[in-house]
């Protein structure tokens, strides 16, 4: 019987936490993610996941979600409690939705600082300062396609491609050193 050990996107056993001046960058390995796309002409069972509109993230329990494209969301949940998130959602929605596990497709960094605008203005073409809380967008950050979710003026989550976790973290650190 094989015994596999989990490894983070950065190749470590533990999630990374990096501090640059007032900025904290925390790798999140405790988030389960699945994509949910509504099949044509179907409606999702109500009350299972939030279904926010374009460019929005919406908190929920146990599932939060953000919009990625028409009729499609990324659903977030606590990994420990919902490791099989995709299976659970498939069971909930049946053939009304196409559900795909995304947990290991992404590296997730939570950024916190008194004000994150100076970091993001050096990284991507998103007007972080002016956008409302709960704003979620796909953007390009250091040549990488990422999802950026604003949870507050000093709190944001970045979903980056897992294979480029090191490059993405490097870009975040360099921008923070430049900004702060």
């Amino acid at each position, binding site marked *: 019987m094989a015994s596999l050990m989990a490894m983070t996107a950065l190749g470590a056993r533990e999630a990374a936490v990096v501090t640059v001046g007032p900025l904290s960058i925390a790798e999140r390995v405790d988030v389960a993610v699945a994509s949910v*796309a509504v*099949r044509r002409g179907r409606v999702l069972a109500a009350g299972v996941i939030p279904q926010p509109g374009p460019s929005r993230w919406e908190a929920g329990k146990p599932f939060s979600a953000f919009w990625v494209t028409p009729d499609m969301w990324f659903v977030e949940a606590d990994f420990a409690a919902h490791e099989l998130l995709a299976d659970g959602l498939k069971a909930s929605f049946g053939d009304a939705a*196409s559900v795909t596990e995304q947990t*290991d497709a992404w590296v997730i960094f939570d950024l916190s600082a008194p004000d994150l605008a100076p970091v993001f203005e050096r990284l991507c073409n998103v*007007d972080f300062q*002016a956008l409302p809380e709960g704003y979620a967008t796909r953007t390009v950050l*250091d040549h990488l396609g990422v999802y950026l979710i604003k949870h507050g003026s000093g709190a944001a989550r970045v979903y980056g491609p897992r294979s480029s976790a090191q490059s993405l973290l490097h870009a975040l650190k*360099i921008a923070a*050193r430049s900004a702060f």
Partner: protein
Amino acid sequence: MSQSHRIEGGQIDRSKTLRFTFDGLPYLGHPGDTLASALLANGVRLMGRSFKYHRPRGPLSAGSEEPNALVELRSGGRQEPNTRATVAELFDGLEANSQNRWPSLRFDALAINDRLNAFFAAGFYYKTFMWPKSFWEKLYEPMIRRAAGLGSVSREEDPDSYDKGFLHCDLLVIGAGPSGLMAALTAGRAGKRVILADEDFRMGGRLNAETFAVAGTSGADWASAVVAELSTLPRVRLLARTTVLGAFDHGIYSAVERVSDHLPVPAAGKPRQVLWRIYSDRAILCGGATERPIAFENNDRPGIMLAAALRAYANRWGVKAGERIAVFTNNDDGLRTASDLKAKGVEVVAVIDSRDGEEVIDTHGRLGLKTIITRDRKGRTREIRVDALGVSGGWNPNVNIHSHHRSRPVWDASIAAFVPGAEGPPGLMVAGAAAGVLSTHGALRTGRDAAISALGLTGAMDLPEAEDAPISVSALWHVAHGKGRAWIDQQNDVTVKDIKLAQQENFTSVEHMKRYTTLGMATDQGKTGNVIGLAIMAELTGRSIPETGTTIYRPPYTPVALGALAGRSRGKEFKPYRLTPSHHWAAEQGATFVEVGNWLRTQWVPKAGETEWRQSVDREVLATRKSVGICDVTTLGKIDIQGTDAGAFLDRVYANTFSTLPVGRCRYGLMLREDGIVFDDGTTARMGEHEYVMTTTTANAVTVFRHLEFCRQCLWPDMDVQLISTTEAWAQFSVAGPNARRLLEKVVDQDISDAAFPYMGAGNITVGGLRARLFRISFSGELAYEIAVPVMRIEKGHVAGGELNGQSTALNMGLGRMVSKKKDSIGMVLSQREGLTDAGGYRLVGVRPVDPKAKLTAGSHFLEKGAAAVAANDGGWLTSKVYSPHIGSDIALGYLKGGDSKIGTRMRAVNLLIGQDTEVEIVSPHFLDPEGERLRG
């Protein structure tokens, strides 16, 4: 080191002293100085040499328009050529050197060019270097290239970093003079989001250089107070040391912020410069105006400066540019210089006002001005001993950015200058001197009004009291006198004579004149010379100045370091890397990696004692053939395709059929472009009734996904199909070789015997309880699986990059039967075009040398035995080659005309580039196990 020319006043911090060197000599200055003001304060006028004639030059201006005082700053990797001393902010330890001279600035051997000026008139190289023709490449061009350019670079790597960034605002104000400050204040007090950018390190523009009062205090103090207020407004961002470079589409402006240029080295982690892309709803150009000189004989000597620059050095920097100063002007503003200098106690020995019929006709002084020759209205001449001369020919509004979308400026005779035309970049307004409003009151008023208009504000702030003198100017472009040279473009050594020559030779259009004479083509882009040049051309041709027009204005407004344009994307940070799930393990084993797109893919893993790559690779190949090998194939693109129409969708995007594929099975698929050429290939597995997993090549992972999204969204929006990439979601390993199953049986939890998991089977399994996927597919011809957990092709004749070259059809690859005629699919119709179906066309073949020791090279061409190596006899080419330790020789794949009918024949593989001519045997592309017994075992 005495600062002999320092006088009272100015906005410098005399409590601190800065040490710096110029050409190795030590000098002193103060915070607030520029390199030019500090050198002038130390009595240094000679700062550079001109481009062509190597004429001695000092600063003409006190700003970014400077054509003459170009120097090299710093040394080593930070050495920076062609920097304008007039804007270089002084810091302690600054190391500056003159350039374009040898052996020294005072004695420059190439000043011989000045003596030979008759041979170096405009267009001389078009006429001189025409023959003999063979000399051009060997002699003339290298010689010209060696002589060209001004400063030098160290060729060491720049140790500093450069950032790029994005800013957003309601209003971008370009320039922080009186109009810009008033516009920003108006918008800022209204709560608008404002960016105020100025190229200077001290905001205030000309207010810092003048003595007029604004709101009952000095202009400089008023500016400081406004800047202080603006800095307290939370939605206003002040960007000093920031030059707006250009206006682009959709309200986008570029700007470079010089974060650390004023420091010896950047602070830890800080960039040298930041290139900003500014998104602005509205913008106001408050870029001021540039004073222009008047052309007269020998008007380029060190000590001859723009009159307002003389005034600025005295008022802002507490510097007198000379002991005995004269002013030559055609307008009232020039008179201000005389009165300001007198008020500072500087000796003003003469004011020559062309409106009174007086002119300066010549000057003397080899390395610096010593005397001027004047002529009065009666023609009487007089020689006056001076060491500085201020020249004012009027002011040119800085229309550049307003003209970046090709808006033509229009002539305003009242100020004898071009002002912005009606059609500028959408959303951009112009205020103050840039709009041709040259009084302080006018600047304040138009700045305020532009902000109100741009943002739709109601109510207007009261304007501070300020001078509002009318403009009195009488155009004078050049002084008609003698046969000597009178400079227009000082940096490129373009004189009035050159304009006359251009006119004589019929280069009368301004665009032709520019290129024939090089007027305005230097680093200063002719900020002080262009209008004079075209005005003189207008005189010569009898056309009006507006008829003559201006050349096109283009970004950047001032020169930009290439480092700023590159930003962080250089060296190892040129692009982000993608690492496979096994990367860290492989790195620990000492693996060698190869870049495949952004991926770093393991190439081979050496073992102790192996000294060259072939030993490692051969061992790995043989191990796979004899036992088992593992390869990380995570880089292959993976796309999850779901929906009730998923099967039908695949039938349309693949040339072969997938809707009939049973659940739990996978199939090799061939994807064509619309034109019938092969686009990509890979296997697709059916994981459920409405759920497929497609595999793409690594190189096409993104383009195939994009293509599928285009098909889904645009071609067949009615289909029920959902797509999402899962390339990164699964760590996928190929396990191949006779012992592949035995190995996997040790890790997977299910029965994977041939009966339970047959060839081309696919399914969800578990590995130690962890969910996983298993596909029984092979690219090596061996018994093989690909196993995926949340994470040798050529012997089997499998096509890859060399064969998928964007020109090959399924027929070329021997896969013609895969293109189903029973259904429509992308590329099916056009793949049947005449020319693509020629029986004698290229076919994929295998190639091996008749002599096993002989070498093959990819790119070699097929030739019949005895045929001459000419294009007419070309039979095709080798697309890829490897050494096969299993077969014991080089083997290759290739496209050969009519190749399917030539199996078993002998030809030659000829490579003229390396002199290789190898007899080869044409064989099946399936070198190994053509019947597939191994992979089905």
